[in-house]
């Protein structure tokens, strides 16, 4: 039996090697225009001053970052051909590719790295990424040393994707405000594989191949046309009739499942791990019945996740039971999944001192901030009615109305979606730290406070030993899963769609389209 099993492994290995060789056999072709889309209007093309998935796409084409990541979350050289972290974790040295140039032909120097760090610290929305960086030394033109106040393992992921865009000091360092610099939207000078041809607000971004890109022979594409298309149904038709070759962040179950049936299209949810978009039910833990952990647990037991994932989302999402995306190496799968159990829910509510009184125990409100979440909150209302919790759905006129309610903790329950953005120290800590309670939308809006969680997160943020760090985050996930300040439901159903002539689509990384498309090529 064992022999047979080994044989099977060997056969599989041979098969995969064969598959790999056939894949290699197809020589990438230069040329062609990739027709793709942006699902919303851009604030700016300068990804050093703006995060988010919309700016991330053109941003990662225009600007190179020091590192890039493969699908096993291992850093790979990009603009930095190598890097070292000192033993005490206080110095991170980047050795830059020697002949790299900006789009205007000027060399990319270590002083540009120092400048970019300064710009990001001042103007980027994610302050925690580079907060521990006290200074950047530039011993020579190709070496940049980031000095840290304390060890900061999150820096590695913060140096990839679109989070650390290297921008030229000689263009953006002219004294104008970084955020409103006129060259953030026109005559952009970047360091990435593609340069800007034209940007028209509300219409398109057109990029063309940068011939002096620092990776020999890349990129393969001559041109990328990104059309701003806000209507998902129109985008779906465009994929089908060939007006779009490629697109990411499609998130409507009906459309995803329909496009899966189209012959010439591939539709896949892989490659979104570092974006890390999680869909969940937030609870205000500071007032009323929800201040009791047992009530929050009862709510988790009363809601049937399967119904949300399979009936509402039609199987387009992945299960997620903690605040970390299931694709992340830090994800702890060994937690309670709160399989639906009404008896347990009722028992917990009784125990918490909320007896059933004429079919009702108490009343709560539930909010939602965007139309796609409406079915979810309607379902939660129906599900909680079964255990005697009367839920009133409060609609918000628009996103800012909801954001205001969340930011000021004016809610009981709310549907919410929050992004991990690579390292937990960037996009996870903010939701749980006591010091970040009620600091606006997507802060710790649950008012959650647990001294051990604060301690773990502060330690994990500075722990350079990967195993120890993993153990800390595992414990953190155990605690928040048990205390349910948030009932973790699923990932957002982000999918990438591409036609069969698009090769090496960016679905094998972790940053989706917030990563360079220098390896993508088009079949004739």
């Amino acid at each position, binding site marked *: 039996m064992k022999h047979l099993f080994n044989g099977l492994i060997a056969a599989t290995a041979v098969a995969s090697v064969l598959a790999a060789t056939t894949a290699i056999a197809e020589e990438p072709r230069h040329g062609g225009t990739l027709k793709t889309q942006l699902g919303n209007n851009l604030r700016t093309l300068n990804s050093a001053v703006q995060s988010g998935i919309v700016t991330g796409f053109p941003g990662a084409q225009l600007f190179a970052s020091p590192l890039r990541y493969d699908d096993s979350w291992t850093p790979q050289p990009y603009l930095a051909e190598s890097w070292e972290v000192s033993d005490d974790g206080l110095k991170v040295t980047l050795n830059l590719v020697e002949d790299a140039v900006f789009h205007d032909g000027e060399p990319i120097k270590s002083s540009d790295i120092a400048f970019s760090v300064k710009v990001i610290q001042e103007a980027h*929305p994610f302050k925690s990424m580079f907060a521990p960086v006290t200074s950047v030394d530039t011993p020579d033109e190709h070496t940049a040393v980031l000095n840290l106040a304390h060890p900061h393992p999150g820096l590695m992921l913060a140096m990839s994707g679109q989070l650390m865009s290297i921008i030229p000091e000689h263009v953006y360092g002219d004294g104008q405000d970084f955020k*409103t610099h006129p060259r953030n939207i026109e005559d952009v000078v970047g360091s990435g594989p593609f340069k800007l041809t034209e940007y028209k607000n509300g219409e398109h971004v057109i990029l063309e191949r940068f011939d002096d890109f620092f990776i020999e022979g890349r990129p393969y594409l001559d041109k990328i046309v990104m059309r701003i298309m806000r209507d998902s149904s129109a*985008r779906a038709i465009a994929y089908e009739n060939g007006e779009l070759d490629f697109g990411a962040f499609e998130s409507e179950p009906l459309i995803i499942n329909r496009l899966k049936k189209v012959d010439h299209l591939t539709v896949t949810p892989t490659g979104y791990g570092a974006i890390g978009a999680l869909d969940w039910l937030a609870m205000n833990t500071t007032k009323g019945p929800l201040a009791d952990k047992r009530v929050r647990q009862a709510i988790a037991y009363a809601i049937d996740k399967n119904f949300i994932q399979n009936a509402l989302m039609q199987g387009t999402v992945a299960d997620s039971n903690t605040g970390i995306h299931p694709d992340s190496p830090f994800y702890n799968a060994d937690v309670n999944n709160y399989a639906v159990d009404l008896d347990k829910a009722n028992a917990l509510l009784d125990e918490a001192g909320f007896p059933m009184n004429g079919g009702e125990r108490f009343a709560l409100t539930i909010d939602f901030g965007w139309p796609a979440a409406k079915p979810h909150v309607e379902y939660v209302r129906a599900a909680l009615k079964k255990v005697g919790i009367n839920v009133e759905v409060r609609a918000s006129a628009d996103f*800012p109305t909801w954001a205001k309610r969340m930011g000021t903790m004016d809610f009981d329950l709310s549907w919410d979606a929050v992004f991990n953005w690579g390292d937990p120290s960037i*996009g996870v800590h903010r939701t749980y730290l006591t010091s970040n309670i009620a600091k606006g939308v997507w802060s710790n809006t649950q008012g959650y406070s647990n001294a051990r969680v604060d301690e773990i997160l502060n330690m994990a943020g500075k722990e350079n030993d990967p195993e120890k760090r993993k153990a800390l985050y595992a414990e953190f996930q155990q605690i928040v899963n048990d205390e349910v300040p948030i009932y973790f439901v699923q990932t957002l159903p982000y999918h990438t769609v591409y036609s069969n002539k698009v090769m090496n689509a960016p679905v094998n990384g972790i940053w989706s389209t917030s990563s360079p498309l220098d390896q993508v090529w088009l079949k004739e």
Partner: protein
Amino acid sequence: MDGAVNFLRVTLIRVFYAVILLIAVLILNFSLMHMAPGDVADTIAQAAGGIDAEALEQIRREYGLDQPFLVQLGRYIGNVLRFDLGYSFFYSDKVTSLILSRLPATLLLVITAQLLALVVGVILGVFSARKPNGILSHFVTFLALFGYSAPVFWTGLLMLVIFSLMIPIFPVAGMRDVTIEGGFFAQAFDIARHLVLPMITLSSIFLALYSRLARATMMEVLGSDYVRTAKAKGLTNRQVVYKHALKNSLSPVITLAGLQLSAVVSGAVLVETVFSWPGLGTLAFQSILARDTPLILGILFFSALVVIVGNLLTDLALRLVDPRVGGKK
């Protein structure tokens, strides 16, 4: 001479009122935007996929959102009086250049859709008025009600499914295919091709309005004395309808069309969204959702200006043309 002075005086008074009205529009809308919950810092956070508390405060400080209401309002009105509509918070670009960059697309869409609706609507209306109980009349009535009651985004998507997917003769979205190379005519043809579906979709609402109005007024006119006189003189039916009746039945239709000036901003929002048409309507809509006060006020200021100037010109033209309007008592 007396008449000319009077005319000038009236014009100046009208202009004076127009300026006051514009400022009132600005103050009212500024207050409304201020009362709406949430601010642009929240929507910037949304676009950024989350934002640190420190950065949120930074944005509010930079855009002066932490100042008292009257200070913010005073600053804004001050800038407008210096002909400066300011910077869009959300797009970090000049409000005027954003509006001007979006205006041509909207004008093209709205004007062509209006013309199409006007011409086709009047033709259909006149035809059905001639035989009010005929099969064509019923068909026109059905078409009008259908066009008016079907939600315009639904009509748009239906058009897309039929003419872009099932019979792929028209492109799905946008105003041009940037991959097309060629001279002026190639580009113009390309834009025309992109224009067809959104134009038809948008005109479907107006079509209903115009055809019903044209039908009603035509029927009324056909029953009037001078038409009977014309018929009695022995003119053919065709001459009576197209030479005598049509001219007189057109004026209400044209008045209505004039009133649609404001549609430059409002009417096209949904159509622009469905067809990814890069116009002013979507910009206005999104700037409200984004709480981008300078941009939305700029657009409202601009559209108020268009309406006021339009009305002023109509009024003055009427005074010149029709001595009964505003003459000496």
